[in-house]
């Protein structure tokens, strides 16, 4: 252990500078949230006032209610919640299974297959979005399509078109594989000796042990899908299938942007994520530390 031989004055100065730096960084991170809050509580006239309004004269709390009256923001939030939840459950199961298989099972082509999955990380979503759109539009026997996938809209404008692209991720598979590899191999053998079948070994032994990694994947994915804009924009066009990010665009038309309502909506949309991080931060920190991953 290092022993600090410096004088008390030196130590205090050093500590003071450290706190100053931390406070400065926190201010930079929190500044946008403060601006969003001020704008959400302002009257339209105060938005572009000069000098800027540090705190509105009369906070307009009713802006938060108006968000739901002016647009179908409630519906959009529900849609987002459904899509993010189902895709997160899917990812936990599918990526968990895939990670377990790649880490603990032996089968021909294991490495090649894993490399192929990893390679998809290098393909940007913008490249695949059009083929994905065509696939979903040509989905057979759905949305008025015949068996060959023509004649209708397929699964466009439905939940599946928003969920399927996020039902499994290469990143999650990679993370789960790395985490599962850290868990001892002989638990498989012990469980096999104890008469557990292959799925029970995964479900009862490895999945509970992989909880920290699953928490990380679940939270990262939920956040990512919650904030997703491009896929919902391309896959849906009807008002009842709006998600938060596309619904936010409703607060702007060709001439004006309703900044106060937009900012209020942004704040509302953040609440579930903030709650999730508060509840899950213990798992998240442990998971990130154990799997050596950053968001």
């Amino acid at each position, binding site marked *: 252990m290092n022993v600090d031989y410096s004088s008390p004055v030196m130590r205090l100065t050093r500590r003071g500078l450290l706190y100053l730096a931390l406070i400065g960084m926190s201010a930079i991170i929190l500044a946008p949230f403060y601006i969003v809050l001020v704008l959400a509580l302002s009257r339209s006239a105060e938005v572009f006032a000069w000098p800027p309004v540090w705190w509105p004269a009369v906070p307009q709390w009713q802006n938060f209610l108006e968000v739901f009256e002016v647009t179908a923001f409630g519906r959009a939030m529900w849609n987002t919640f459904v899509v993010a939840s189902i895709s997160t459950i899917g990812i936990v199961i599918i990526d968990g299974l895939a990670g377990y298989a790649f880490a603990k099972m032996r089968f021909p082509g294991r490495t090649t297959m894993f490399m192929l999955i990893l390679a998809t990380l290098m393909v940007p979503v913008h490249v695949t979005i059009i083929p994905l759109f065509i696939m979903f539009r040509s989905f057979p026997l759905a949305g008025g399509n015949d068996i060959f996938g023509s004649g209708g809209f397929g699964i466009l404008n439905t939940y599946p078109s928003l969920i399927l692209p996020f039902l499994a991720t290469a990143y999650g598979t990679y993370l789960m594989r790395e985490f599962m590899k850290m868990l001892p191999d002989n638990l498989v*053998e012990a469980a096999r000796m*104890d008469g557990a079948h292959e799925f029970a070994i995964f479900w009862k032994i490895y999945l509970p042990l992989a909880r920290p990694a699953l928490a990380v994947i679940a939270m990262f994915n939920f956040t990512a899908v919650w904030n997703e804009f491009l896929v919902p924009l391309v896959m849906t066009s009807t008002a009842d299938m709006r998600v938060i990010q596309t619904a936010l665009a409703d607060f702007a038309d060709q001439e004006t942007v309703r900044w106060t309502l937009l900012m209020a909506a942004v704040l509302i949309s953040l609440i579930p994520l903030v709650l999730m991080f508060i509840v899950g931060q213990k798992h998240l920190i442990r998971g990130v530390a154990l799997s050596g991953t950053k968001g």
Partner: protein
Amino acid sequence: MTVAVETKDVWKTYPGGVRAVRGADIRIEPGELMVLVGPSGCGKTTILRMIAGLERITAGEILVGDRVVNKVAPSKRGVALVFQNFALYPHKTAAENIAFPLESAGVPKSEIQPRVAAVAEMLELTTQLDRRPGELSGGQQQRVALGRAIVRNPSVLLLDEPLSNLDARLRVVMRTELKRIQRAIGSTAVYVTHDQVEAMTMGDRIVVMNDGVVDQIGTPQEVYLTPASVAVAKTIGSPAMNLLAGVASATGGAVRIEGDEWALELDGDGGAHVARSLEGLAGARVVLGVRPVDLDLRASAAPRDEGGPAVLASGTCLTAEPLGSETLYNVTVAKELVRVLRYETHVGIREGERASVALAPGARLHVFDETSGKRLAGVALQADGMGARWRPYENADPL
């Protein structure tokens, strides 16, 4: 059931051509505690894992009871395995760990609880049942691992170096404990270890393995007193047997074995016995095996002693290691290091002094073929009124 476990000419070749086990034939009787012992990589754990069903066999047959189990799933073989590092499920409590095999077998919940309680009581774990493995000591974890194995009442209990993760003191305690439990449940046990003390103290019989081959199967006394090969002689006994290379020549009924700065005359019935065993041996190159406890150390001023049946060689005492009740002397004879174990705390020889290495009364000698390493003959030094005489010594007869 005539046999508990049998391996019939079992081979294991790993991808890449490594032959871990070569033609193992082992018969384990019901209720027996059989120990597989040998150095690292000798194939003992591979055999255990093949019996467990965790490793596929390349050729041969494995029987558990009267049933060939080559293609039977591990959990259906009626065997249970205690892993070297226990392999407990870290997220389950001791009770849940022990209950897991019963749950997997679909045993009703009402039946699981009493069975877990009974096992816990036998293993003195009752107060630890609610704890997770991380909250248990090494010895307790080992008991949980054992509990998980015996809760299903397996006909065969397989133990893979179960004591190697425990400290020395606990190992001695658990040795007795394991033997007690094995007797109590009446299962056959197959026990793998590289520790020859464990093998000698625990085994009803011992299988000594080397380089994938079964070298010898016998009681601890048999393998100690009549090792079948140089490899067995090296594995069993502590301190290890002295093995000196030499050339044997038979003249009349006697045999003279001569090495680098040592020589030995074997006369009497023992000499004739060795002479017979040497017949047909090309070059007559042999390895003389003698245990440190069968040697004696005498002060000697002369560079070379005058021979006689009791004196083997003379050399320099390199180190004297007091072990408490006995002292281990390391004596250099030519380029060899000869170990002598004496119970007298003071033989009167200090490090750096010249000394004669003599054969102790009743000493047993083992003659091995240098090429094949196989045992050729054994002789024992017998003192009578006429002086020392050698007599044949086989079949582990206690002298």
